[in-house]
C-alpha cells in the first residue's frame, strides 16, 4: 500500500507553495464578497464546473472516449437530489444519503449508455452520446404526464439546502462578528469535495485502471492483446465519469434550490468538453485550469464589456451571453488548430498528438 501522496523527494518549497495556494483558496470568498456576493456564486459555479470537467476528463482524457452528452449525468444527479429533497414528493432525505444515491443512479445511466455503444468508433460514439443527452433532456421535459415525476419544463423548486446537524448551508451566519453568507459556506464545502475528487483523480491516473485506460486510448487492439478487458475498462470509465457528474449535479440542485431541463441543454455538455479540451485532455491540472478560465473569463467580460459598450455606443450591441458562447467556440477551434494538446498538455497526450495518426 503506497501512501496517498508520495512525500519523498519533494522540496520544502513545494509544500510552502501548496500551503499558500490552500490559504488563498480558503480566503477567496472573503475577498470576492467584498466585490459582491454574486462573485461568490460565480466561484461556486466555477468549482462545480471543475468537478464536471474532472469527471468528463476521466472519460475523454483518460480513456479517450469523446462524450458529448455528459451533462445528462449532471441532470440525473440533480433530479435525484431534487426528487428526494423537495416538497414535490414531500421527501426530505438528508444530503449524505442522496448524494451517493445520485452518484449510483448516474453511474447506472453511464453503464446503460455505455454497454451497447462502447464498441463504436470514436466519432460515432460522440454522436450517440450526444443523442443520449438530448433524449434525457426530452424525457425530463415530458415526464410530467401521465404521472407527474419531473414537473416538465416548470422544473422543481424549493429544493432543500444541505444541512449538517444544526448547520444550514443556505443561511447567513455571524461568527465572531464576521458575516458568513450561504454561498460562502457552500464554497468551502465545494472546495473540500473538489480536493477529494482531485486526489481520487490523481490516484486513479497512476493506478492499474488508469494505465489500462491509457492503453485503451492509445491502441485498443494492442491493449486487448495485452490482456486488458477493453469493454469492462471503458464501461468503468463511463460509470466513474458519470458518478462524478451525478455528485456535481446533486450539489448544483441544492445550491440553486431550483432546477429545470433548461439547465441541461446540449450547449452545457459542449461547454464542459471545451474546458477539458482547452486545459489539456488527460492532464488533471490542465483540466482544472480550463474549467476555471472558461468559468471566470466570460463573467469578467460580462462585467467589463457591457459598461464599455454602453460608454462607447450608448447601447448594448453584443450581449454578454453571445460573447461567452463565441469564446467557447473559438477556444475549441483555436486550441485544436494551434495547441491540440491544450494549454497544459499531458505528457503522453502530447506525444500522441504530435504523431501523424493516433492509431
Amino acid at each position, binding site marked *: 500500500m503506497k501512501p496517498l501522496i508520495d512525500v519523498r523527494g519533494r522540496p520544502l518549497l513545494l509544500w510552502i507553495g501548496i500551503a499558500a495556494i490552500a490559504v488563498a483558496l480558503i480566503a477567496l470568498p472573503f475577498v470576492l464578497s467584498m466585490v459582491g456576493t454574486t462573485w461568490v456564486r460565480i466561484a461556486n459555479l466555477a468549482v462545480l464546473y471543475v468537478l464536471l470537467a474532472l469527471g468528463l476528463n476521466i472519460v475523454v482524457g483518460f480513456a*479517450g472516449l*469523446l462524450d*458529448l452528452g455528459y451533462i445528462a449525468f449532471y441532470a440525473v444527479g440533480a433530479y435525484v437530489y431534487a426528487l428526494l429533497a423537495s416538497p414535490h414528493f414531500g421527501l426530505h432525505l438528508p444530503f449524505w444519503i442522496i448524494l451517493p444515491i445520485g452518484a449510483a443512479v448516474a453511474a447506472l445511466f453511464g453503464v446503460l449508455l455505455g454497454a*451497447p*455503444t462502447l*464498441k*463504436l*468508433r*470514436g*466519432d*460515432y460514439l*460522440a*454522436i*450517440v452520446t*450526444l*443523442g*443520449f443527452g*438530448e*433524449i434525457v433532456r*426530452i*424525457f425530463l*421535459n*415530458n415526464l410530467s*404526464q*401521465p404521472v407527474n415525476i419531473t414537473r416538465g419544463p416548470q422544473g422543481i423548486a424549493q429544493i432543500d439546502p444541505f444541512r449538517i446537524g444544526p448547520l444550514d448551508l443556505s443561511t447567513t451566519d455571524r461568527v465572531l462578528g464576521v458575516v458568513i453568507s450561504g454561498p460562502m459556506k457552500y464554497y468551502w464545502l465545494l472546495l473540500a469535495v473538489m480536493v477529494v475528487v482531485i486526489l481520487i483523480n490523481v490516484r486513479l491516473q497512476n493506478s492499474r485502471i488508469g494505465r489500462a485506460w491509457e492503453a485503451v486510448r492509445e*491502441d*485498443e*487492439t494492442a491493449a486487448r492483446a495485452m490482456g486488458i478487458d477493453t469493454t469492462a475498462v471503458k464501461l468503468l470509465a463511463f460509470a466513474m465519469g458519470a458518478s462524478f457528474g451525478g455528485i456535481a449535479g446533486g450539489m448544483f440542485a441544492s445550491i440553486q434550490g431550483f432546477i429545470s431541463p433548461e439547465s441541461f441543454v*446540449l*450547449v452545457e455538455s*459542449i461547454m464542459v*468538453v*471545451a474546458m477539458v*479540451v482547452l486545459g489539456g485532455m488527460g492532464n488533471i491540472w490542465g483540466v482544472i485550469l480550463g474549467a476555471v478560465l472558461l468559468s471566470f473569463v466570460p463573467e469578467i467580460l460580462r462585467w467589463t464589456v457591457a459598461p464599455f459598450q454602453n460608454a462607447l455606443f450608448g447601447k448594448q450591441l*453584443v450581449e454578454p451571453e*453571445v460573447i461567452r*458562447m*463565441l469564446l*467557447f*467556440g*473559438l*477556444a*475549441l*477551434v483555436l486550441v*485544436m*488548430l494551434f495547441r*491540440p494538446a491544450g494549454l497544459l498538455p499531458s505528457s503522453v497526450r502530447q506525444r*500522441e*498528438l504530435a504523431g*501523424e*495518426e*493516433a*492509431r
Partner: protein
Amino acid sequence: MDIFVQQLINGLTLGAVYAVVALGYTMVYGIIQLINFAHGEVVMIGAMVAFTVINLLAAGGLPPLAVVLIGAACAIPVCMLVSYTVERLAYRPLRRAPRLAPLITAIGVSIILQHLAMLVWSRNVLAFPQIIPLKTFHFLGATVTGVQLTILGICAAIMCGLAALVYRTRLGRAMRATAQNPQVAGLMGVDINRVIASTFVIGAALAAVAGVMVGTYYGVAQYTMGSILGLKAFAAAVLGGIGNVPGAMVGGLLLGVVEALGAGYIGDITDLCRYGPLARAIGERCADGGHFVLFGSNYQDVFAFVVLILVLVFRPSGLLGERVGDRA
C-alpha cells in the same frame, strides 16, 4: 387510414428535406471521414439569408415563386462561401490530425456560426410573409399542400442531379477516387484539395436549398433551427449508411416517415387504457373514455436519436453502406 396517408405525406416531405441535408453530411464523411457538425448551421444560415431577402421583396409585387427563387439564389452563394471558408480555415489544417481533433473543431465552428447568426439576425424569429396562396389537393383522403408538392419535386430533382454529378461527371469520379484513397488519387493527378473543397461547397448549396424549403414549410426561421435539423439529418445519413449517396436519400425519407408515423401513433399505442387488464389496474383515470398516455407526440424528437442509436448498435454500416472495418 386517412391519418395514416396524411402522416405518410407529411413524413415524406420532411424526410425529403432531411435527405437533402443528409447528402451534405454523407459526401463530406465519405471523402474525409469527418462528421461536419457545422452543416446544420449552414442550413440555418441559408434559411435566414433567404428569409431576409424574401421579406425585403415581399411588398414589391413580384410573383411569389420569383421571390422565393431570388431568396434561394441569394442564400446559395452565401452558404457556399461560409462552408468554403470553414473548410479552408478550420478543417484543412487538421486533415492529418487524429480523428477527434477535426470533430471537436467542427463543434466549435458550429457554436461560432450559430452565435454569429444571432449577432446578425438577433434572437427574433423571422416569419415567412404570407405571399404563397394556400393551394391544397386531396389524395386518398389526405390533404397535400402546394408547398409540400413543390418540396417533394425539388428534392427529387436535387437527388437525381447529385447522383448524375457523382456518377457521371469528371468531378464526381474524382470525388469517388478521393473517397477510396486520397493518396493514390493524388498520385493519379487529382487535385485533392480542390475536390474536397468542391464537396463542401456542393453540400453547402444543397444545405441552402434545404434551409429555404424547411423554412417555407414551417413558415419560420430562427438562429437555433440548425442544430436539431442537422442532428436529424445526420441520423438519416447514418441510417442509410454514411458515405453512401443513395443511402442518404433512402435514410432521409425513411427517417421522416418513421418520425411522422411515430409521432402520429405513439400516443395511441402507449395509451394504457386501451389494454384491458392495465386499464382495470389504473382504474378511475381510464373510466369514461379517459386516457393514460405514457408517451405522447411531444416525444417526436426522440425518434431520430433512437433510430440513430439502434442503427449504430445493430448495423453500424447502415442500410446501404458497406461494412466499415476500422472500429478502433
